[in-house]
Protein backbone atom coordinates (compact mmCIF):
# COMPACT_ATOMS: atom_id res chain seq x y z
CA UNK A 1 0.00 0.00 0.00
CA UNK A 2 2.78 2.37 0.91
CA UNK A 3 4.44 1.65 -2.41
CA UNK A 4 1.23 2.35 -4.22
CA UNK A 5 0.90 5.67 -2.44
CA UNK A 6 4.49 6.48 -3.36
CA UNK A 7 3.88 5.61 -6.98
CA UNK A 8 0.83 7.81 -6.99
CA UNK A 9 2.76 10.71 -5.46
CA UNK A 10 5.55 10.25 -7.96
CA UNK A 11 3.05 10.24 -10.81
CA UNK A 12 1.53 13.40 -9.49
CA UNK A 13 4.88 15.14 -9.09
CA UNK A 14 5.83 13.96 -12.58
CA UNK A 15 2.97 16.04 -13.87
CA UNK A 16 4.11 19.30 -12.27
CA UNK A 17 6.23 20.57 -15.22
CA UNK A 18 3.64 19.85 -17.91
CA UNK A 19 0.94 21.21 -15.64
CA UNK A 20 2.95 24.41 -15.20
CA UNK A 21 3.39 24.69 -18.98
CA UNK A 22 -0.38 24.36 -19.53
CA UNK A 23 0.50 21.26 -21.56
CA UNK A 24 -2.45 19.29 -20.18
CA UNK A 25 -6.05 19.07 -21.27
CA UNK A 26 -8.75 20.76 -19.23
CA UNK A 27 -9.80 17.36 -17.95
CA UNK A 28 -6.26 16.46 -16.89
CA UNK A 29 -6.01 19.81 -15.15
CA UNK A 30 -9.13 19.10 -13.12
CA UNK A 31 -7.94 15.63 -12.31
CA UNK A 32 -4.58 16.95 -11.10
CA UNK A 33 -6.29 19.59 -8.97
CA UNK A 34 -8.49 16.91 -7.42
CA UNK A 35 -5.51 14.67 -6.69
CA UNK A 36 -3.59 17.55 -5.18
CA UNK A 37 -6.47 18.31 -2.86
CA UNK A 38 -6.31 14.72 -1.60
CA UNK A 39 -2.53 14.45 -1.57
CA UNK A 40 -0.20 14.50 1.37
CA UNK A 41 0.59 18.15 2.22
CA UNK A 42 4.27 17.49 1.67
CA UNK A 43 3.55 16.23 -1.84
CA UNK A 44 1.32 19.13 -2.79
CA UNK A 45 3.92 21.54 -1.42
CA UNK A 46 6.61 19.97 -3.58
CA UNK A 47 4.25 20.12 -6.52
CA UNK A 48 3.56 23.81 -5.91
CA UNK A 49 7.25 24.59 -5.54
CA UNK A 50 8.05 22.95 -8.84
CA UNK A 51 5.18 24.72 -10.62
CA UNK A 52 6.37 27.99 -9.16
CA UNK A 53 9.93 27.43 -10.39
CA UNK A 54 8.65 26.72 -13.87
CA UNK A 55 6.44 29.80 -13.84
CA UNK A 56 9.33 32.01 -12.77
CA UNK A 57 11.45 30.49 -15.52
CA UNK A 58 8.75 31.17 -18.10
CA UNK A 59 8.39 34.74 -16.82
CA UNK A 60 12.13 35.18 -17.43
CA UNK A 61 11.71 33.59 -20.86
CA UNK A 62 9.14 36.23 -21.81
CA UNK A 63 11.98 38.71 -22.27
CA UNK A 64 12.95 36.61 -25.27
CA UNK A 65 9.73 37.18 -27.14
CA UNK A 66 8.93 40.74 -26.00
CA UNK A 67 7.02 42.66 -28.68
CA UNK A 68 5.25 46.00 -28.38
CA UNK A 69 1.47 45.76 -28.71
CA UNK A 70 -0.39 48.31 -30.86
CA UNK A 71 -0.75 51.59 -28.93
CA UNK A 72 -4.53 51.71 -29.24
CA UNK A 73 -4.73 48.71 -26.94
CA UNK A 74 -3.52 50.92 -24.11
CA UNK A 75 -6.17 53.54 -24.81
CA UNK A 76 -8.88 50.92 -24.95
CA UNK A 77 -7.82 49.20 -21.75
CA UNK A 78 -7.60 52.42 -19.79
CA UNK A 79 -11.01 53.41 -21.16
CA UNK A 80 -12.50 50.13 -20.04
CA UNK A 81 -10.93 50.34 -16.62
CA UNK A 82 -12.09 53.90 -16.07
CA UNK A 83 -15.53 52.96 -17.30
CA UNK A 84 -15.70 50.17 -14.75
CA UNK A 85 -14.57 52.48 -12.00
CA UNK A 86 -17.16 55.11 -12.76
CA UNK A 87 -19.86 52.44 -12.90
CA UNK A 88 -18.89 51.29 -9.45
CA UNK A 89 -18.91 54.76 -7.87
CA UNK A 90 -21.91 56.61 -9.25
CA UNK A 91 -22.68 58.36 -5.96
CA UNK A 92 -20.66 61.55 -6.41
CA UNK A 93 -22.03 62.34 -9.82
CA UNK A 94 -23.92 65.55 -10.25
CA UNK A 95 -27.20 64.24 -11.49
CA UNK A 96 -29.72 62.49 -9.32
CA UNK A 97 -30.92 59.71 -11.53
CA UNK A 98 -29.73 56.19 -11.19
CA UNK A 99 -26.92 55.64 -13.62
CA UNK A 100 -28.26 52.26 -14.62
CA UNK A 101 -31.54 53.81 -15.66
CA UNK A 102 -31.10 55.58 -18.95
CA UNK A 103 -34.04 57.24 -20.57
CA UNK A 104 -36.31 54.75 -22.19
CA UNK A 105 -36.44 55.08 -25.95
CA UNK A 106 -39.50 57.04 -26.92
CA UNK A 107 -41.74 54.46 -28.37
CA UNK A 108 -44.18 56.98 -29.75
CA UNK A 109 -41.39 58.51 -31.79
CA UNK A 110 -40.07 55.39 -33.33
CA UNK A 111 -41.39 56.18 -36.80
CA UNK A 112 -39.95 59.67 -36.62
CA UNK A 113 -36.41 60.97 -36.60
CA UNK A 114 -34.93 61.39 -33.13
CA UNK A 115 -36.36 64.18 -31.03
CA UNK A 116 -35.68 67.83 -31.36
CA UNK A 117 -33.38 70.22 -29.65
CA UNK A 118 -33.36 70.70 -25.94
CA UNK A 119 -33.31 73.45 -23.43
CA UNK A 120 -30.34 74.23 -21.24
CA UNK A 121 -31.38 72.04 -18.39
CA UNK A 122 -31.97 69.02 -20.53
CA UNK A 123 -28.74 69.76 -22.26
CA UNK A 124 -26.95 69.57 -18.92
CA UNK A 125 -28.72 66.37 -18.05
CA UNK A 126 -28.01 64.98 -21.46
CA UNK A 127 -24.38 65.61 -20.91
CA UNK A 128 -24.50 63.13 -18.11
CA UNK A 129 -26.23 60.69 -20.35
CA UNK A 130 -23.73 61.45 -23.00
CA UNK A 131 -21.18 60.28 -20.51
CA UNK A 132 -23.00 57.00 -20.16
CA UNK A 133 -20.86 55.31 -22.74
CA UNK A 134 -21.12 51.63 -23.15
CA UNK A 135 -17.79 49.91 -22.93
CA UNK A 136 -19.06 47.73 -25.73
CA UNK A 137 -18.82 50.70 -28.03
CA UNK A 138 -15.18 51.10 -27.18
CA UNK A 139 -14.66 47.45 -27.91
CA UNK A 140 -16.37 47.93 -31.23
CA UNK A 141 -14.02 50.77 -32.01
CA UNK A 142 -11.16 48.51 -31.15
CA UNK A 143 -12.42 45.99 -33.64
CA UNK A 144 -12.63 48.57 -36.35
CA UNK A 145 -9.16 49.79 -35.69
CA UNK A 146 -7.73 46.32 -35.51
CA UNK A 147 -9.24 45.41 -38.82
CA UNK A 148 -7.94 48.62 -40.33
CA UNK A 149 -4.52 48.17 -38.94
CA UNK A 150 -3.84 44.66 -40.07
CA UNK A 151 -5.33 45.05 -43.48
CA UNK A 152 -3.51 48.21 -44.33
CA UNK A 153 0.09 47.76 -45.26
CA UNK A 154 0.80 51.22 -46.63
CA UNK A 155 0.69 54.44 -44.65
CA UNK A 156 -1.15 54.47 -41.37
CA UNK A 157 -4.85 55.25 -41.63
CA UNK A 158 -6.58 58.08 -39.85
CA UNK A 159 -7.89 55.84 -37.11
CA UNK A 160 -4.42 54.49 -36.41
CA UNK A 161 -2.98 57.98 -36.22
CA UNK A 162 -5.75 59.04 -33.87
CA UNK A 163 -5.35 56.07 -31.58
CA UNK A 164 -1.60 56.43 -31.51
CA UNK A 165 -1.73 60.15 -30.76
CA UNK A 166 -0.40 61.40 -27.45
CA UNK A 167 -3.51 63.48 -26.88
CA UNK A 168 -6.12 60.91 -27.91
CA UNK A 169 -9.46 61.37 -26.13
CA UNK A 170 -12.87 59.79 -26.14
CA UNK A 171 -16.28 61.41 -26.01
CA UNK A 172 -19.34 59.26 -25.91
CA UNK A 173 -23.05 59.33 -25.34
CA UNK A 174 -26.42 57.69 -25.70
CA UNK A 175 -28.91 59.08 -28.16
CA UNK A 176 -32.53 59.70 -27.29
CA UNK A 177 -33.64 57.61 -30.22
CA UNK A 178 -31.59 54.70 -28.86
CA UNK A 179 -28.02 53.63 -29.44
CA UNK A 180 -24.69 55.17 -28.63
CA UNK A 181 -22.25 57.43 -30.40
CA UNK A 182 -18.58 57.62 -29.53
CA UNK A 183 -15.94 59.79 -31.03
CA UNK A 184 -12.26 59.08 -30.44
CA UNK A 185 -10.29 62.12 -31.44
CA UNK A 186 -6.94 63.85 -31.37
CA UNK A 187 -6.50 67.58 -31.76
CA UNK A 188 -2.88 67.07 -32.70
CA UNK A 189 -3.83 64.74 -35.51
CA UNK A 190 -6.75 67.03 -36.34
CA UNK A 191 -8.99 64.01 -36.83
CA UNK A 192 -11.44 61.72 -35.11
CA UNK A 193 -13.20 58.42 -35.57
CA UNK A 194 -16.93 58.27 -34.93
CA UNK A 195 -18.59 54.99 -34.06
CA UNK A 196 -22.34 54.68 -33.75
CA UNK A 197 -23.81 51.49 -32.33
CA UNK A 198 -27.45 50.47 -32.54
CA UNK A 199 -28.56 53.87 -33.73
CA UNK A 200 -31.77 53.73 -35.72
CA UNK A 201 -31.38 54.95 -39.31
CA UNK A 202 -33.03 58.25 -40.24
CA UNK A 203 -36.45 58.08 -41.85
CA UNK A 204 -36.64 57.72 -45.64
CA UNK A 205 -36.07 61.03 -47.32
CA UNK A 206 -33.87 62.33 -44.52
CA UNK A 207 -30.26 62.02 -43.38
CA UNK A 208 -28.29 62.47 -40.21
CA UNK A 209 -25.92 65.35 -40.64
CA UNK A 210 -22.84 65.92 -38.51
CA UNK A 211 -21.64 69.39 -37.57
CA UNK A 212 -18.43 70.64 -36.08
CA UNK A 213 -19.34 73.27 -33.53
CA UNK A 214 -16.74 76.01 -33.41
CA UNK A 215 -16.37 79.63 -32.37
CA UNK A 216 -17.67 80.70 -35.76
CA UNK A 217 -20.75 78.51 -35.70
CA UNK A 218 -21.51 75.15 -37.25
CA UNK A 219 -19.51 73.59 -40.07
CA UNK A 220 -21.10 70.69 -41.96
CA UNK A 221 -19.07 67.49 -41.42
CA UNK A 222 -20.87 64.93 -43.53
CA UNK A 223 -24.18 63.13 -43.77
CA UNK A 224 -25.43 59.59 -43.26
CA UNK A 225 -28.27 58.24 -45.33
CA UNK A 226 -30.62 55.53 -44.03
CA UNK A 227 -28.45 53.02 -45.91
CA UNK A 228 -25.28 54.30 -44.27
CA UNK A 229 -26.53 53.64 -40.76
CA UNK A 230 -25.86 50.01 -39.88
CA UNK A 231 -25.97 48.41 -36.42
CA UNK A 232 -22.34 49.55 -36.16
CA UNK A 233 -21.42 52.56 -38.25
CA UNK A 234 -18.05 54.25 -38.39
CA UNK A 235 -16.98 57.50 -39.94
CA UNK A 236 -13.73 59.41 -40.06
CA UNK A 237 -13.80 63.10 -39.18
CA UNK A 238 -11.14 65.52 -40.36
CA UNK A 239 -10.31 69.13 -39.45
CA UNK A 240 -11.66 68.84 -35.94
CA UNK A 241 -8.98 70.77 -34.08
CA UNK A 242 -10.94 74.03 -33.96
CA UNK A 243 -14.19 72.40 -32.87
CA UNK A 244 -15.60 72.25 -29.36
CA UNK A 245 -18.31 69.70 -30.11
CA UNK A 246 -19.66 67.32 -32.71
CA UNK A 247 -23.39 67.85 -33.23
CA UNK A 248 -25.97 65.72 -35.02
CA UNK A 249 -29.11 66.88 -36.78
CA UNK A 250 -31.79 65.45 -39.02
CA UNK A 251 -31.91 67.03 -42.46
CA UNK A 252 -33.59 66.37 -45.78
CA UNK A 253 -31.72 64.12 -48.19
CA UNK A 254 -28.60 65.87 -49.40
CA UNK A 255 -28.05 67.74 -46.17
CA UNK A 256 -28.35 71.40 -45.30
CA UNK A 257 -26.01 74.33 -44.96
CA UNK A 258 -27.36 75.14 -41.50
CA UNK A 259 -28.68 72.60 -39.00
CA UNK A 260 -32.43 72.38 -38.60
CA UNK A 261 -32.72 70.42 -35.39
CA UNK A 262 -29.71 69.34 -33.36
CA UNK A 263 -30.58 66.20 -31.43
CA UNK A 264 -27.25 65.29 -29.87
CA UNK A 265 -23.84 66.76 -29.16
CA UNK A 266 -20.58 65.15 -28.16
CA UNK A 267 -18.05 67.52 -26.58
CA UNK A 268 -14.65 67.66 -28.27
CA UNK A 269 -12.61 69.39 -25.61
Amino acid at each position, binding site marked *: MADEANDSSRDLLDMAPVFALDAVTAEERREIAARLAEADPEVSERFDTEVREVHE*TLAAMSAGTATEPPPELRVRLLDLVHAELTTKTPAEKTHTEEPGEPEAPRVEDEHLPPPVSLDERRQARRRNFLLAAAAAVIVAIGGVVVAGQWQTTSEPGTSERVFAAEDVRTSSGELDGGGTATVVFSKEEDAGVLVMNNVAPPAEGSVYQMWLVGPEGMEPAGTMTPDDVAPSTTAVLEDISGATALAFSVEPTGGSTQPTAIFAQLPLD
Partner: protein
Amino acid sequence: MLVVDTLALSGGNVPARLFPDERTEPMTGVGGHTDTLGELLERVARQDPTAFAELYDATRSRVFGMVLRVLRDPGYSEETTQEVYLQVWRSADRYDPRQGSALSWIITLAHRRAVDRVRSEQSGADRESHYGSTNVDAAFDSVSEEVTQRDDRRRVNECLGSLTELQRRSVELAYYRGFTYTEVAEELSSPLPTVKSRIRDGLKRLKNCLGVTVDG
Protein backbone atom coordinates in the same frame (compact mmCIF):
# COMPACT_ATOMS: atom_id res chain seq x y z
CA MET B 1 -2.09 25.71 -4.62
CA LEU B 2 -0.99 27.56 -7.67
CA VAL B 3 -4.06 26.80 -9.68
CA VAL B 4 -5.18 30.12 -11.04
CA ASP B 5 -8.85 30.44 -11.68
CA THR B 6 -9.93 31.69 -15.02
CA LEU B 7 -12.49 34.38 -14.52
CA ALA B 8 -15.51 34.55 -16.69
CA LEU B 9 -15.12 37.95 -18.23
CA SER B 10 -18.16 39.79 -19.34
CA GLY B 11 -16.61 40.68 -22.64
CA GLY B 12 -16.80 44.37 -22.03
CA ASN B 13 -20.57 44.52 -21.96
CA VAL B 14 -20.60 46.25 -18.63
CA PRO B 15 -22.93 49.21 -18.58
CA ALA B 16 -20.46 51.95 -18.13
CA ARG B 17 -20.22 55.65 -17.81
CA LEU B 18 -17.47 57.67 -19.28
CA PHE B 19 -15.19 59.73 -17.17
CA PRO B 20 -13.04 62.77 -17.37
CA ASP B 21 -10.21 62.67 -19.81
CA GLU B 22 -7.29 61.92 -17.62
CA ARG B 23 -6.34 58.84 -19.57
CA THR B 24 -4.21 60.70 -22.00
CA GLU B 25 -0.94 60.14 -20.20
CA PRO B 26 1.94 60.00 -22.61
CA MET B 27 2.73 56.47 -23.66
CA THR B 28 6.11 56.34 -22.12
CA GLY B 29 7.72 53.52 -20.25
CA VAL B 30 7.85 53.22 -16.54
CA GLY B 31 10.78 55.46 -15.74
CA GLY B 32 10.36 57.79 -12.83
CA HIS B 33 8.45 55.62 -10.42
CA THR B 34 9.96 53.27 -7.96
CA ASP B 35 7.16 50.82 -7.34
CA THR B 36 7.96 47.23 -8.04
CA LEU B 37 5.54 45.19 -10.08
CA GLY B 38 4.28 43.57 -6.90
CA GLU B 39 3.56 46.94 -5.35
CA LEU B 40 1.82 48.07 -8.52
CA LEU B 41 -0.29 44.94 -8.48
CA GLU B 42 -1.30 45.66 -4.89
CA ARG B 43 -2.39 49.13 -5.93
CA VAL B 44 -4.25 47.67 -8.90
CA ALA B 45 -6.07 45.39 -6.46
CA ARG B 46 -7.29 48.59 -4.78
CA GLN B 47 -8.55 49.67 -8.23
CA ASP B 48 -5.94 52.38 -8.78
CA PRO B 49 -6.07 53.19 -12.52
CA THR B 50 -2.70 54.97 -12.50
CA ALA B 51 -1.05 51.87 -11.10
CA PHE B 52 -2.84 49.83 -13.74
CA ALA B 53 -1.42 52.02 -16.49
CA GLU B 54 2.08 51.72 -15.03
CA LEU B 55 1.75 47.99 -14.66
CA TYR B 56 0.56 47.72 -18.24
CA ASP B 57 3.46 49.77 -19.52
CA ALA B 58 5.95 47.75 -17.54
CA THR B 59 4.68 44.36 -18.73
CA ARG B 60 2.83 44.89 -22.02
CA SER B 61 5.62 43.89 -24.40
CA ARG B 62 6.33 40.70 -22.49
CA VAL B 63 2.67 39.72 -22.33
CA PHE B 64 1.82 40.65 -25.90
CA GLY B 65 4.99 39.08 -27.27
CA MET B 66 4.39 35.77 -25.53
CA VAL B 67 0.74 35.72 -26.59
CA LEU B 68 1.74 36.55 -30.16
CA ARG B 69 4.27 33.77 -30.12
CA VAL B 70 1.54 31.31 -29.14
CA LEU B 71 -1.30 32.64 -31.30
CA ARG B 72 0.74 33.90 -34.28
CA ASP B 73 -2.03 36.27 -35.25
CA PRO B 74 -1.76 39.94 -34.30
CA GLY B 75 -5.52 40.49 -34.10
CA TYR B 76 -6.18 37.49 -31.86
CA SER B 77 -3.15 38.41 -29.80
CA GLU B 78 -4.40 41.92 -29.22
CA GLU B 79 -7.80 40.63 -28.14
CA THR B 80 -6.28 38.07 -25.84
CA THR B 81 -3.90 40.62 -24.33
CA GLN B 82 -6.85 42.88 -23.65
CA GLU B 83 -8.67 40.05 -21.89
CA VAL B 84 -5.57 39.28 -19.87
CA TYR B 85 -5.24 42.82 -18.57
CA LEU B 86 -8.93 43.08 -17.77
CA GLN B 87 -8.52 39.90 -15.79
CA VAL B 88 -5.53 41.43 -14.03
CA TRP B 89 -7.60 44.50 -13.23
CA ARG B 90 -10.50 42.48 -11.90
CA SER B 91 -8.62 39.83 -9.98
CA ALA B 92 -5.42 41.51 -8.83
CA ASP B 93 -6.57 40.96 -5.26
CA ARG B 94 -6.01 37.26 -5.81
CA TYR B 95 -2.31 37.76 -6.35
CA ASP B 96 -0.36 36.34 -3.45
CA PRO B 97 3.28 37.48 -3.41
CA ARG B 98 4.23 34.44 -1.34
CA GLN B 99 3.38 32.27 -4.32
CA GLY B 100 5.61 33.93 -6.86
CA SER B 101 6.52 37.15 -8.62
CA ALA B 102 3.93 39.51 -10.02
CA LEU B 103 5.35 39.03 -13.50
CA SER B 104 5.02 35.28 -13.33
CA TRP B 105 1.44 35.67 -12.11
CA ILE B 106 0.58 37.83 -15.12
CA ILE B 107 2.48 35.71 -17.63
CA THR B 108 0.79 32.61 -16.26
CA LEU B 109 -2.66 34.15 -16.71
CA ALA B 110 -1.72 35.27 -20.19
CA HIS B 111 -0.35 31.92 -21.28
CA ARG B 112 -3.41 30.07 -20.05
CA ARG B 113 -5.65 32.38 -22.05
CA ALA B 114 -3.49 32.13 -25.15
CA VAL B 115 -3.48 28.35 -24.97
CA ASP B 116 -7.23 28.24 -24.47
CA ARG B 117 -7.60 30.43 -27.52
CA VAL B 118 -5.24 28.49 -29.74
CA ARG B 119 -6.87 25.21 -28.78
CA SER B 120 -10.32 26.55 -29.49
CA GLU B 121 -9.20 27.87 -32.88
CA GLN B 122 -7.88 24.64 -34.27
CA SER B 123 -7.14 21.03 -33.59
CA GLY B 124 -3.60 19.98 -32.80
CA ALA B 125 -3.16 18.44 -36.22
CA ASP B 126 -4.18 21.66 -37.95
CA ARG B 127 -1.86 23.61 -35.74
CA GLU B 128 1.08 21.56 -36.78
CA SER B 129 0.34 21.41 -40.49
CA HIS B 130 -0.50 25.08 -40.60
CA TYR B 131 2.23 26.41 -38.41
CA GLY B 132 4.72 23.60 -38.28
CA SER B 133 7.25 24.74 -40.81
CA THR B 134 10.43 26.48 -39.79
CA ASN B 135 9.75 29.50 -41.99
CA VAL B 136 7.00 30.53 -39.59
CA ASP B 137 9.66 30.81 -36.92
CA ALA B 138 11.75 32.87 -39.28
CA ALA B 139 8.82 35.17 -39.96
CA PHE B 140 8.22 35.51 -36.27
CA ASP B 141 11.84 36.40 -35.66
CA SER B 142 11.71 39.21 -38.17
CA VAL B 143 8.57 40.64 -36.55
CA SER B 144 10.32 40.62 -33.21
CA GLU B 145 13.42 42.34 -34.54
CA GLU B 146 11.93 45.60 -33.35
CA VAL B 147 12.16 44.49 -29.79
CA THR B 148 14.31 46.76 -27.75
CA GLN B 149 15.60 44.32 -25.21
CA ARG B 150 17.96 42.60 -27.59
CA ASP B 151 20.31 41.48 -24.90
CA ASP B 152 17.55 39.76 -22.98
CA ARG B 153 16.37 38.21 -26.16
CA ARG B 154 19.79 36.93 -27.07
CA ARG B 155 20.25 35.51 -23.62
CA VAL B 156 16.95 33.64 -23.74
CA ASN B 157 17.79 32.27 -27.17
CA GLU B 158 21.22 31.20 -25.97
CA CYS B 159 19.62 29.38 -23.09
CA LEU B 160 17.15 27.68 -25.40
CA GLY B 161 20.10 26.76 -27.56
CA SER B 162 21.82 25.12 -24.62
CA LEU B 163 19.06 22.50 -24.46
CA THR B 164 19.29 19.27 -26.37
CA GLU B 165 17.34 19.36 -29.60
CA LEU B 166 14.65 17.11 -28.22
CA GLN B 167 14.36 19.02 -24.95
CA ARG B 168 14.02 22.27 -26.83
CA ARG B 169 11.44 20.96 -29.27
CA SER B 170 9.40 19.40 -26.47
CA VAL B 171 9.36 22.61 -24.44
CA GLU B 172 8.61 24.79 -27.47
CA LEU B 173 5.78 22.61 -28.77
CA ALA B 174 4.22 22.57 -25.34
CA TYR B 175 4.72 26.17 -24.35
CA TYR B 176 4.67 28.10 -27.61
CA ARG B 177 2.31 25.94 -29.64
CA GLY B 178 -0.12 25.03 -26.90
CA PHE B 179 0.34 21.27 -27.43
CA THR B 180 -0.60 18.97 -24.60
CA TYR B 181 2.24 16.67 -23.59
CA THR B 182 0.31 13.83 -25.24
CA GLU B 183 0.30 15.76 -28.50
CA VAL B 184 4.00 16.50 -28.07
CA ALA B 185 4.64 12.77 -27.68
CA GLU B 186 2.70 12.02 -30.86
CA GLU B 187 4.42 14.78 -32.76
CA LEU B 188 7.88 13.61 -31.75
CA SER B 189 6.97 9.90 -31.86
CA SER B 190 8.23 9.47 -28.33
CA PRO B 191 6.78 7.66 -25.33
CA LEU B 192 4.94 9.83 -22.81
CA PRO B 193 7.40 9.30 -19.93
CA THR B 194 10.27 10.31 -22.19
CA VAL B 195 8.51 13.51 -23.17
CA LYS B 196 7.71 14.35 -19.58
CA SER B 197 11.30 13.89 -18.48
CA ARG B 198 12.64 15.87 -21.46
CA ILE B 199 10.34 18.73 -20.59
CA ARG B 200 11.32 18.60 -16.94
CA ASP B 201 15.05 18.44 -17.72
CA GLY B 202 14.76 21.16 -20.35
CA LEU B 203 12.97 23.50 -17.95
CA LYS B 204 15.56 22.85 -15.22
CA ARG B 205 18.32 23.70 -17.64
CA LEU B 206 16.55 26.89 -18.69
CA LYS B 207 16.04 27.87 -15.08
CA ASN B 208 19.72 27.48 -14.29
CA CYS B 209 20.85 29.14 -17.49
CA LEU B 210 18.61 32.16 -16.89
CA GLY B 211 19.65 32.37 -13.26
CA VAL B 212 16.09 32.15 -12.00
CA THR B 213 15.88 31.90 -8.25
CA VAL B 214 12.80 31.12 -6.23
CA ASP B 215 12.58 32.05 -2.58
CA GLY B 216 11.44 29.54 0.01
